[in-house]
Structures are given as structure tokens and as C-alpha cells.
């Protein structure tokens, strides 16, 4: 990528403290306890956790079946994907026009639109609003952008209690954990764990049957009090519709409805890229989002909000604020090849299909957005210390095939890797290893010599009983896997001796 097309944010989110001592892992410049090192440690631990893998496998199989049924309901799923791609392409390629149109329409109904360049600005605006209105309790419906800007800790600092009201978000909030998945935040937990948690934190008298119906009812009773005592409701937005100037929120539980109906003030926090041109676009986007997110034909509540309570309306908040968050997104517009990353509608389909995500789980990424889209986006939003995520992929391309807006995700991961190398974020050792590998791959003689030395060397090493010791180059591989059987001949020799003819 040329220097005239920067993809890093102009003002990085984290200015960063003094660098810690450096290590070198997988060709990346590493720091003690830095995100890359933590990722490797957590990913290794989670991928060896059979119970965790089993939970995720069952969840994903259930999703997969629903997703297939959902796709079959379309006359042509590919045509629907292409329509979504074009809607988002039109919106992002005219982002300024549509955002201004949205702002004008919301303002005309008495709403307020605030533009936040950074997470700090977004939080400061909401904190000031809460202080001005003497807010003590806030109810939140699911919003990944509020996670991204760390809104809840900012509110807690001024003494405001923030309740997550989506059931999955509420569960992980009680556990002091970040969401595991952008659509199913508590996917990694079994009902018995949730039952124990609820008896400890929600209702000590809850029966030990851990029936999901009872668990949901217990959360509902508790959160009902929060809804009706909160002065402020904070939501995200799945889409912001330029004409007629409304936010669109998709929820199944109804918590988003209560959050935006009952409290005196409603604040919607959303990324600038969520804009779409017109209301009719939802006729395609709503069914595609629901199918990709959960396999449903359409989400239970497709809510549209364009302002505070209007004269003659029975209820609704007195104030309506929309916080448009940039936080590095506008930097991606200048990249001709990666601008389409801003088309993402946060359905989670790429995570569900990703073999890496299925093994290492959502928390190992150490970021708000996990899986393929998170690995593409996070280095742009949070800087080069997250470049390692672009390597958290087998490049199988499954993510690209399921993306409902047809983002070429696996190629963007490759582009991120290339940019990371070109911008000098990789360690010298790593570059040297790749150079040697490249030379060997281009020279049959060198490749054959390397293979011969490896076979002979490993055979000798294993004969001496040194497998798994510091001298074994396969030690890391064999730690959690069966030892690789050593072939007597190279593949090329086997081919010549008849393998190719079979």
C-alpha cells in the first residue's frame, strides 16, 4: 500500500505507554504482556480446552442449521447479498452526503446529533449529558460501539450504574467479562454456570433446575426494575437511515424497545459507517441481517427511531441524542482496496464459520471485534500492536463466502499482513525466515535438500529419545498434537515410484 493511502487512524485511539521489553514471536515485534503475546497464550490455552470447544461446536452447529434454512427462504441468496453489497457501497462512497442528510432529518424532529472523532470525545459527551440531567441509572441495549469506546467504565466513574439489558450481555456483565460474541455474548456458558451465577448475583431463591425459562424470568424481573427507574437509555444502531433520518435497531428480546421507550433520555451510539441511504433498503437488509445473524427470517423487533417524543404521542423520551463515532473509521475510506471493510453490518456470520474462531473462542482475540472482521478491522482502529490478528487465519476464505455484504475478508487479512511488513512492524528474524522459505520454495534442489535434512535429522533425534526436548524443532507442534509420522521418502520420490499413477 502506498504512503498516499493511509489506513491507520490519523489519531490512534490509544496513545500507549512506554514500550515494554521486546520479545520476538512469529515474526512480529512483541512486548512482554502485549496483545500479541497474550493472544498466543490465550489461544493456545483455549484451543486445548476440549469442554470449551464442545460448547462452541454445538452452538455453531445449531447456528449453521438455522443459517442454511434461512438462506433457503430466499429466491436467490446470492442476489440478496449483492443487493446488500451495493446498498452499503452506495452509502459508504457518499458517506458525507448521507450523514448530513441523516443529521438534518433528526435535527428537524428535535433530536441532537453529536460527531465524536475519538472514543474519549464520545464518552465525554455522554458523561456530560448524564451529569447535566443528574442521571443515576442507565439501561443499555446491546451495542458493540459502546464496548469499543468503553462507555460503561466512564459512566461508573461518575457514579452512574449502567445495566446491560440484553440477556447475554447481562450475564457477561455479572461475570465482569467482555462479550464473547457480537450476537451471542454468553455463547461460551452452559445453563448450570448461568444458574449458579444467578443464584449468587440475581436471586438466591432461584430453583436449581436451571431451566432456561426460569433463568430468563429471573433476569427479566431484575431488569424490569432497572428499566422503570433509569433516567437514561443507551442503545446502538444496526443502521442509520439517511432518509427519513431514523436509526434502525434489531432486537429479539424487547430490551432495545424498553431502553428507547421508557427512560427520559435516549442516547444512540453508533459508528459513522452504519448509514444507509433510504428506508426501503431495509426490505433487503433486515432479512439478510437476521438470516446471517441467527438464521431467523427477520428479527422480532425492527425498531425505527427518529427523534424524541413528538407532540400528540403517548410516550417516549423527552430527549434523543445520536453520537456518531469515527474513532479511526474515516481513515479506511482512503484505502481503495480496503474501504469495503466499512460495509460490515456486524452479523457475526464470519465468526461462526471461521475455523480459528471455533477453536480459540471469542475472548482470545483480546478485542471487542473478534473473528475475521475483527482481525481485519482492529489493526486499523487500534494500531499496529494488533497486527498479529491478521495472522489469526488459515486463509481458507470461508468468511468471505458467508459475508452478507460480500467483504473480501481473507484477502484483507493478506493485505494487512503485507502492510505490516512494508511499514516495518515485523521483526528482522521473521523477515529472514520468510526470505529463506521463499528461496527454498523457488529452488527444487534447495527444497529437496531441506526435506532430506529434516527427515534425517528428526529420525536421528527421535532415535536418541530427544522428542519433545528443546532440541526438537517440532516440539511446539507436538505439545498438543500427536507426533507427525516421518515418511521414509520425500513426496516427490513417492510420486515417482507410483503414487501419482494411483
Amino acid at each position, binding site marked *: 500500500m502506498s504512503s498516499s493511502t493511509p489506513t491507520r487512524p490519523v489519531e490512534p485511539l490509544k496513545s500507549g505507554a512506554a514500550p515494554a521489553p521486546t520479545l520476538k514471536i512469529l515474526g512480529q515485534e512483541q512486548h512482554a504482556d502485549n496483545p500479541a503475546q497474550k493472544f498466543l497464550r490465550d489461544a493456545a490455552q483455549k484451543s486445548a480446552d476440549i469442554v470449551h470447544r464442545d460448547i462452541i461446536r454445538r452452538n455453531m452447529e445449531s447456528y449453521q442449521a438455522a443459517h442454511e434454512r434461512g438462506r433457503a427462504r430466499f*429466491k436467490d441468496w446470492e*442476489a440478496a447479498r449483492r443487493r446488500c453489497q451495493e446498498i452499503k457501497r452506495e452509502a459508504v462512497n457518499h458517506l*458525507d452526503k448521507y450523514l448530513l442528510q441523516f443529521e438534518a432529518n433528526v435535527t428537524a424532529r428535535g433530536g441532537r446529533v453529536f460527531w465524536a472523532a475519538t472514543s474519549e470525545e464520545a464518552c465525554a459527551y455522554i458523561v456530560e*449529558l448524564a451529569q447535566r440531567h443528574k442521571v443515576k441509572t442507565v439501561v443499555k441495549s446491546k451495542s458493540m460501539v459502546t464496548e469499543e469506546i468503553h462507555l460503561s467504565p466512564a459512566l461508573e466513574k461518575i457514579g452512574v450504574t449502567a445495566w446491560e439489558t440484553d440477556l447475554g450481555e447481562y450475564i457477561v456483565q455479572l461475570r465482569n467479562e467482555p462479550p464473547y460474541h457480537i450476537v451471542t455474548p454468553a455463547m461460551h456458558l452452559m445453563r448450570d454456570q448461568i444458574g449458579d451465577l444467578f443464584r449468587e448475583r440475581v436471586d438466591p431463591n432461584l430453583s436449581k433446575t436451571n431451566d432456561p425459562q426460569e433463568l430468563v424470568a429471573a433476569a427479566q424481573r431484575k431488569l424490569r426494575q432497572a428499566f422503570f427507574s433509569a433516567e437514561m437509555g443507551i442503545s446502538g444502531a444496526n443502521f442509520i437511515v439517511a432518509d427519513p433520518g431514523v436509526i434502525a435497531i434489531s432486537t429479539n*428480546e424487547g430490551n432495545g424497545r424498553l431502553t428507547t421507550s421508557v427512560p427520559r433520555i435516549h442516547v444512540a451510539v453508533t459508528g459513522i459507517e452504519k448509514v444507509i441511504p433510504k428506508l426501503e433498503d431495509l*426490505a433487503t437488509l433486515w432479512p439478510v441481517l437476521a438470516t446471517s445473524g441467527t438464521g431467523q427470517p427477520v428479527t422480532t423487533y*425492527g425498531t425505527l427511531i427518529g427523534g424524541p417524543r413528538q407532540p400528540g404521542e*403517548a410516550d417516549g423520551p423527552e430527549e434523543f441524542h445520536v453520537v456518531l463515532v469515527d474513532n479511526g473509521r474515516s481513515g479506511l475510506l482512503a484505502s481503495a482496496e480496503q474501504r469495503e471493510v466499512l460495509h460490515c453490518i456486524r452479523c457475526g456470520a464470519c465468526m461462526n464459520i471461521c475455523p480459528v474462531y471455533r477453536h480459540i473462542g471469542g475472548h482470545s482475540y483480546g478485542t471487542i471485534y473478534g473473528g475475521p472482521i475483527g482481525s481485519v478491522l482492529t489493526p486499523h482502529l487500534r494500531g499496529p500492536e494488533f497486527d498479529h490478528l491478521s495472522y489469526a487465519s488459515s486463509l481458507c476464505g470461508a468468511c468471505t463466502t458467508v459475508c452478507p455484504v460480500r467483504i473480501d475478508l481473507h484477502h484483507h487479512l493478506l493485505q494487512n499482513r503485507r502492510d505490516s511488513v512494508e511499514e516495518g512492524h515485523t521483526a528482522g528474524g521473521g523477515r529472514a525466515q520468510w526470505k529463506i522459505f521463499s528461496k527454498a520454495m523457488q529452488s527444487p534442489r534447495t527444497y529437496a535438500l531441506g526435506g532430506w535434512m529434516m527427515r534425517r535429522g528428526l529420525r536421528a533425534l527421535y532415535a536418541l529419545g530427544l522428542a519433545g526436548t528443546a532440541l526438537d524443532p517440532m516440539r511446539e507442534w507436538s505439545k498438543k498434537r500427536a507426533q507427525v509420522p516421518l515418511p521414509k521418502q520425500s513426496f516427490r520420490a513417492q510420486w515417482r515410484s507410483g503414487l501419482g499413477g494411483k
Partner: protein
Amino acid sequence: MAASNSSRELILERIRAGLRVPVAAAEPSPALSDAFAPVENPLERFQTEAKANLMECFLTADAPRSADQLVATLRSLPEGEIFVQDAPSLRRLLEMANPQRAVRWSSEGAPREASQATITLAEALVAQTGSIFVTAACGGRGASVVAPCHIVFATTDQIVPDLYTALSGAQKQGRLKQHSFACMISGSSRTADIEKILVQGAHGPRRFVVVLQKS
């Protein structure tokens, strides 16, 4: 005093600078009819989809039968106040039904937290997805979410074939210019956040009843 918005111009400037970089031309977008099959029989389709959405849909022949259905639904609910959208057609229906319960009309304010049911009209019914489209004119925001049971009284001529027709109709009539809120409701409140097991009635109505009167 609200925080100043000095970043507005900065963000717009960044966006415009980024957009000056040319990108590949867009491919022609497929038509909506390429992606979604046409809806052949809207009434039948609505009933099928509504059932799949776990709604209770009762087709009635006339107003007295609708009143009977309303009475039957209300009898199945616990004692307590109901909230009703203040509209002439619903006043007539309630008069016929005579539900023997305290009634709070939307003209008196928002539904109370303890409401046992809400009764509203709808802007349109969508056959493609079995959805009910409401705006703030249908009793307000809380009318479709606060109580454990939401009853919608509608007529078959309100059924439109698909989402596109419902949304473009609302747009043409300026429904979202006039009102601060609208919602496409496709069933009862639900969650599958615990082991992907479906539970009906999370924060919104557990029951969603449509009394659909023939036009």
C-alpha cells in the same frame, strides 16, 4: 450547556479526503425480485408466517366476532388493567366486548408497568414475514412492549405483500416524518441466549395476538 461539536467538521473533512481516492466502479445491483420470490396469496402467507413467528392469529368475519375473540383472549389473562389505543374503532370494539376491566386509554398517557395487556391498531400487516408494522400513532412506544400480552386489531385490507411495500408506503405517506417511532414486529419477545434454547417472553410480550377481521 451541551458539549461543543468541534469534531464535526474534522470528521467530514477526513471523510471527504478519503472519498477523493477513486475506487472500482460498482456492479449493477440485482432487482429486489431477483432476491425474494413474489408473495402469491397475501392472506394465507400472512397467517402461515405469523404462526411461524409464534403469534396467535384469529381470522374473524365481522365486528361482533372480533369482539368475542377479544373477550376470549382477555378472559385468559390475569386480572388487571388493560391499555388501549384511543381510536374510534377500538372504542367501538371495547364497547361491544365490555371487558369488565379497568381500561387506560392512550390519550391518558403511557401504559402502566402493571398493564396486563395492550390493544392497538396497526399501520400495515406484512405477508412476506408475518409482521405487524406500527408507529407511535398506534398508542405510542410502550403500547407494543410493556405488557405481557399485545393484542392487535386489524383488517385484511391492511395486509401488504412484502417489507418493501410496507416501508415504501410508510415513506410515501410521510409516517416517519410525522412520528418519532415505528416498529416492524414479527412475533412475541424471545431469546435464545442460553445454550441457543428458545424462550418466549424475555422483556416484551410473551403473547402476541392478532384479531384479523375480514374487510
